[in-house]
C-alpha cells in the first residue's frame, strides 16, 4: 500500500507533459496490437558459404538427414540457420554471423509442453486476446552448446540448458485476423512478442 502511495505521489508531482508522455506510453505499450514487427528475409545458401564453426557443430549432432542452410537477414542482424527434419521432428539451429551457436529450435505440439507451464501460457494468452488459435510451437534451447548437443544425442535431461517456448498464434484484433510470435520462459512466463507480417497470397487465390 505504501509503495502504491509513493507511486501515486510521484505521478502527481510529474509535469503535465511528463504525465501525458507516460500515459501515452502506457496506452501504447499496453495495447496488444502495438508490438515489434517480425520481418525476416532468408536466402537458401550452399554449405561452402556457412562459417566453419557452424558446420562443425551441425556435423557433431550427427543428423543422418539432408541439412538445408539459410542466411537470414533480420532488421539489424544477419544469422545462419540449418534446418532439417529428423525422426519426424523439424529442427532449426541458428548461428550468429560469425558462426557462434545461438539456439536450437524443435517443432513440438502444445501438448508436449508440461501441463502446468502450458496452462500458465494459455492463461496469459486468454487474458490478452480471449479467443486465439495456436499455429506453431517450438521448443527453443540455448546456452551451453555442448549440453544441448548431449541432450539431442542422448535424449538426456535439459539440465543447465536455457529453455524457452516460441509460440505462434492467430487471433482477431479489431475485426482482422493477425498473427503473433510469443516467447515464453521455461516456467511459462511471458518474455516477448512480435507481430508477424503476413505475405500476400493474391497470386494463388485469384
Amino acid at each position: 500500500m505504501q509503495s502504491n502511495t509513493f507511486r501515486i505521489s510521484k505521478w502527481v508531482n510529474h509535469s503535465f507533459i511528463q504525465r501525458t508522455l507516460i500515459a501515452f506510453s502506457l496506452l501504447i505499450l499496453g495495447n496488444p496490437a502495438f508490438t515489434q514487427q517480425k520481418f525476416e528475409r532468408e536466402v537458401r545458401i550452399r554449405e561452402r558459404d556457412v562459417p566453419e564453426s557452424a558446420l562443425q557443430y551441425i556435423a557433431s549432432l550427427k543428423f543422418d538427414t539432408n541439412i538445408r542452410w539459410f542466411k537470414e537477414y533480420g532488421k539489424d542482424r544477419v544469422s545462419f540457420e540449418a534446418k532439417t527434419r529428423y525422426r519426424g521432428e523439424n529442427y532449426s539451429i541458428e548461428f550468429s554471423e560469425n558462426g557462434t551457436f545461438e539456439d536450437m529450435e524443435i517443432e513440438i505440439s502444445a501438448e508436449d509442453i508440461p501441463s502446468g507451464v502450458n496452462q500458465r501460457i494459455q492463461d496469459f494468452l486468454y487474458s490478452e486476446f480471449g479467443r486465439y488459435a495456436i499455429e506453431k510451437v517450438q521448443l527453443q534451447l540455448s546456452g551451453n552448446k555442448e549440453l544441448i548437443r548431449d541432450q539431442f544425442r542422448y535424449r538426456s535431461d535439459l539440465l543447465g540448458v536455457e529453455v524457452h517456448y516460441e509460440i505462434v498464434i492467430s487471433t482477431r484484433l479489431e475485426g482482422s485476423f493477425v498473427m503473433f510470435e510469443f516467447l515464453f520462459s521455461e516456467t511459462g512466463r511471458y518474455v516477448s512478442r512480435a507481430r508477424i507480417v503476413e505475405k500476400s497470397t493474391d497470386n494463388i487465390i485469384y
Partner: protein
Amino acid sequence: MGRSWLFLLLFVLVSVNLHARPNPQWGILPSVNINKRLPKDWSVNFKAESRQIIYRDSFRFTYSLTDVSLIAATRIRLRTTIGGGYLARISENGIRHRAIQQISISRNYPSFRLSHRISMDQSFGMQNPAEFRLRYRLSSEIPLQGQSLDPGEFFLKFSNEYLNAFQENDYDLEVRTAAYLGYALSPAGKLELGLDHRANSFISGYARHRFWIGLNYFYTLKD
C-alpha cells in the same frame, strides 16, 4: 532434387501433349491484378485479362477478348477467404456477364504455399444460353531462394484446375494446367511469366487444346 523431378515431369507432360494433339491453338494472355485491402479483413480485387490468338491452323495475330472483373472478399478464418463478384467479357460480339462466387483456403508449408479454390460462376448475355460452371483449382507457390518469398526473389507457380461447365443439356469438363516463373518485385508486386494449357471437349468428342503464354502482374495496394 525434388524440384528437378518436378521440372522433368512438367517437361515430359508438355512434350507428350505437344506431340499428341494436332493443331493446338496458341495465344498470349496478359493480365493485371490489383488487390486493395480494406478494414476488418475485407478486400477487393480488380483484374483485367486480355486474350490474343497467335496460332490457330496458321500464324496470325488476332485479338479475341478482354475480361474485366471485380471481386469483394473477406476472411472467415486466418487462411480462408470467401468472395463474390462480377466479370464482364468484352469481345467484338458484345458483352457477356458473369457472376462469381468463390472460397479459397491457403496453407503455408515449410518451403511452399498451397491454395485450394472452389468457385462457381454463371454467365449470361450475347444471345448465348446461360452457362453454369463449378471449378476447383489447386495452386502452389514455391520460392526458389528461401523458405518464404521475399522481394527480389524468384518463385515457381504451378496450378491445376478442373472446370465443370453446364449449358442447356450439355456438360463439358475443362482441365487447366499452368506453370509460371515469377519474380517478387516488392512486398506488394509480383510478375509471372509462364504457360497455361487448357483442354476441353474430350468427354463428348475430339479434344480441343489451347496453350496460352501468360504474363501476370499482381499488385497489392496498401491498407
